[in-house]
């Protein structure tokens, strides 16, 4: 129904364009009034006044549907003390009602024995609430549909009525549009604020439970030790101190990222040099897009590949030469990640190398240097800043990469620099602490936001550094 009402908003807005235009034309030709703007603009004027209010209201109704649903089902008329309930109790009752709502409208013969006993246990007001819930979608949908037929029509007629020869529609229309496009560009800023505040807000909640210093400097990570002893005492403070130590996650992340960079930097850079300096344009045209496929492959595919083929292969090879290799070694995840970021290094470095002015190369050739000497002694030093920028971007990618490490790295924290041992990462722990649990009232889930904030800050610094370096470099040769 919500979609249908959106269709109505579009259709009605579109038809009001013709209505407004017709009205303007009739003013001009039948009543001989002079129009201040072109007739089209009266059409746009009506459309804008119909479309934007309607679409904004529609969007709010869409987003807050579940809030309306809760208000409708858990009304104080049925449950007089609802305002005093804790969120846990509220959730339990809501869950019970939504289970009831599936069976409450079935006829007697369709009920199983279990259904009947559930119905018997429910209170009178819960049954009514369940019936309300079962009907909610229909009621909400129909009331929406009615609203979105009446509202645009009403707005449309009011707007059309206000059209007169003296009304100069064009500046008004242009003003509205300029506000809309201005607002659109501020949305990007809102998203950044949204990210920042949702991370900071929940991270502060986390640091209410766990000391700031304990988090950043402890070397043990055992979130499962953070459990409630009993309701009155809350969390075991001693265990909390030991539970969330960030250090092993940081070393694990850096370990896997370093393995990835050890793969991606030489391969990516050499590929870029070969493609930019040696390869014929034919080879270049074929090889470059194929290598860029590596960047387009979803990371879940690399994760699957790393866990399924690469990790067992590395384990077998390691055992073949007598080295103990874990099945979830940092090496496997790092290698897969390295392959993934080859194109980030290669295409950025490729651009940078190509931007080095031809005169530098020719000067080097003129004094008798070979091609490789020119590359090593002239081009690479000249392009160094840009290449460094591409490395920084690649590191930032590697640190923030999630699926490969979730699937191929270990879940257990391990303070080690040996790539053959298992290691876990920041992103892995964010995912494991949030899967299947959305209660924001204990440090086990809140820690994800503290980790996310650290990750955000780390990648932000790397990105800003990289962007600044690349920008400076570009200015040098332009």
């Amino acid at each position, binding site marked *: 129904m919500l979609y249908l009402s959106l269709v109505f908003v579009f259709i009605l807005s579109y038809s009001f364009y013709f209505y407004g235009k017709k009205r303007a034309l009739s003013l001009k030709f039948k009543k001989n009034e002079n129009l201040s703007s072109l007739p089209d603009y009266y059409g746009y004027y009506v459309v804008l006044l119909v479309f934007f209010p309607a679409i904004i209201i529609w969007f709010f109704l869409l987003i807050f549907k579940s809030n309306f649903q809760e208000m409708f089902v858990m009304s104080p008329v049925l449950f007089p003390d609802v305002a005093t309930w804790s969120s846990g109790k509220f959730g339990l009752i809501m869950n019970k009602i939504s289970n009831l709502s599936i069976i409450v409208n079935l006829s007697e013969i369709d009920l199983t024995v279990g259904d009947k006993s559930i119905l018997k246990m429910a209170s009178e007001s819960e049954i009514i609430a369940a019936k309300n819930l079962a009907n909610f979608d229909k009621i909400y949908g129909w009331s929406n549909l009615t609203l979105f037929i009446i509202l645009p029509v009403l707005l449309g007629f009011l707007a059309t009525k206000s059209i007169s020869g003296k009304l100069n529609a064009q500046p008004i229309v242009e003003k509205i549009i300029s506000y809309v496009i201005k607002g659109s560009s501020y949305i*990007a800023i809102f998203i950044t604020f949204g990210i920042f505040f949702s991370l900071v807000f929940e991270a502060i909640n986390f640091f209410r439970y766990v000391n700031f210093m304990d988090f950043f400097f402890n070397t043990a990570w055992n979130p499962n030790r953070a459990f409630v002893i009993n309701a009155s005492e809350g969390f075991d403070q001693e265990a909390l101190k030991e539970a969330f130590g960030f250090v092993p996650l940081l070393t694990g992340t850096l370990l896997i990222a370093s393995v990835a960079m050890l793969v991606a930097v030489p391969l990516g850079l050499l590929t870029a040099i070969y493609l930019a300096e040696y390869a014929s344009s034919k080879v270049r045209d074929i090889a470059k897009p194929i290598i860029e496929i590596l960047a*387009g492959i979803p990371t879940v595919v690399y994760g699957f590949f790393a866990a399924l083929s690469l990790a067992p292969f590395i384990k077998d090879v390691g055992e073949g030469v007598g080295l103990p290799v874990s099945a979830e070694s940092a090496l496997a995840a790092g290698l897969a990640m390295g392959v993934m970021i080859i194109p980030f290094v*290669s295409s950025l470095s490729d651009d940078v190398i190509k931007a080095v002015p031809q005169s530098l190369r020719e000067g080097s050739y003129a004094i008798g240097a070979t091609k490789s000497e020119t590359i090593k002694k002239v081009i690479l030093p000249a392009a160094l800043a840009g290449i460094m920028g591409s490395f920084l971007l690649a590191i930032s990618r590697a640190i923030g*990469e999630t699926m490969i490490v979730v699937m191929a790295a270990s879940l257990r924290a391990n303070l080690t620099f040996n790539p053959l041992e298992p290691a876990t990462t920041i992103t892995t722990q964010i995912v494991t602490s949030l899967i299947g649990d959305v209660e924001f009232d204990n440090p086990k889930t809140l820690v994800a936001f503290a980790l996310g904030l650290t990750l955000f800050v780390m990648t*932000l610094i790397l990105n800003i550094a990289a962007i600044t370096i690349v920008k400076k470099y570009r200015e040098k040769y332009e």
Partner: protein
Amino acid sequence: MSSLEKRLAAEKRFKFYGMFAMTLSLFFVLILMYKIFSTGSGAFVRTTINADVYFDPNFIEVSSNSSKKEIMKASYVDLADQVINQNHPGLDEENFIKVREMYTRKFDYQLRDYIANNPNVIGKTVNLDISASSDLDQIVKGNYPRNVPEAQRKINDYQLSILDSLDSKGKMSKTFNFWFFTNGDSRDPETAGILGALMGSFYALLICFSFAFPIGLLASVYLEEFVKPGKITDIIEVNINNLAAVPSIVYGLLGLGMLIGVFGMPYQVPLVGGLVLGFMTLPTIIIASRASLRGVPPSIREGALAVGATKMQTVFHHVIPLSLPGTLTGTIIGMAQALGETAPLLLVGMVAFVMEIPGGAFDPATGLPSQIYLWSESAERGFLEKTSAGIMLLLSFLIIMNTVAVLVRRKLEVKW
């Protein structure tokens, strides 16, 4: 060796390193594709066992006059057992269970659907292809080795002997696995399908597009055409460049903390997943669209202004239409990235076990990549090829989208 020879040898070596690195990178693409396609192709085929099914009225609770609803509600477990007894006469209880395990657990549903479509079949005998269980399917396809010790096999020696005798009678066959494309997720690999995840991704991308495309286009128009360079534009510009490089999992945290936590939107639904993907795609679209707006030569704008168009008319009548191919290309590429993103979907809950095929953006759903993740975590051997097949499907969608993007650019782009 003279110094010149040394230098020339170094030159050769260096060139070889470059070529080697490039070949190795190309080799990685090949090996990845080979691995995925070789494990995944099996999922499109399903092993079936041919059996004579006598629809014995004694074992069927309904008659041919029953309504469709009654037929769908009745139990057919006894009938399924009866069919196995008929086709494998003389089994004791222990062996019966072993033979039953060779057929799909959803055997009775297959019979139910057949009766629902042909109610007159009750009392008659029909020759049907019954789907084999996933474990048997894997043995037949050769994904399980037959020669490992019996204790490590899911199909034991007795079941293997039954399989061989069925095979020698020509009762084993393979059909195209339509279920993979028409079913939702399932606990049994043989009946698990991708359609639910596909629809989940479709709704999420729909939301993502309707959020990110209009806003991205208008924002880039503002930044390129209307505002004079200054502090605020610098802030927005730096901001957008940074947003493009924020790890996707952070967007997932935004969805969880803000959309679900603060606004109270539901968990597990494509609406939230789509909005988060939209936030993520927005910077990509803005960057592509700005580049494309910059590509429109100033003479177009000056020409329009010279004949008396307002700024707004110039932009909306001339500049945007000319820049649209570039914007669309950027949008399609951004959507392709969004389709492959998994981490944000994990955080907003689109990784649950969902059997039903979602009918809208408010129904619980998984996405294509998160379904792949779910299957890859599953212990059942049969899900391995499903995972690879899911990846094949995902990659083909990505290839299609990127091809469309290239075609759009080639066909519509105006060269100045």
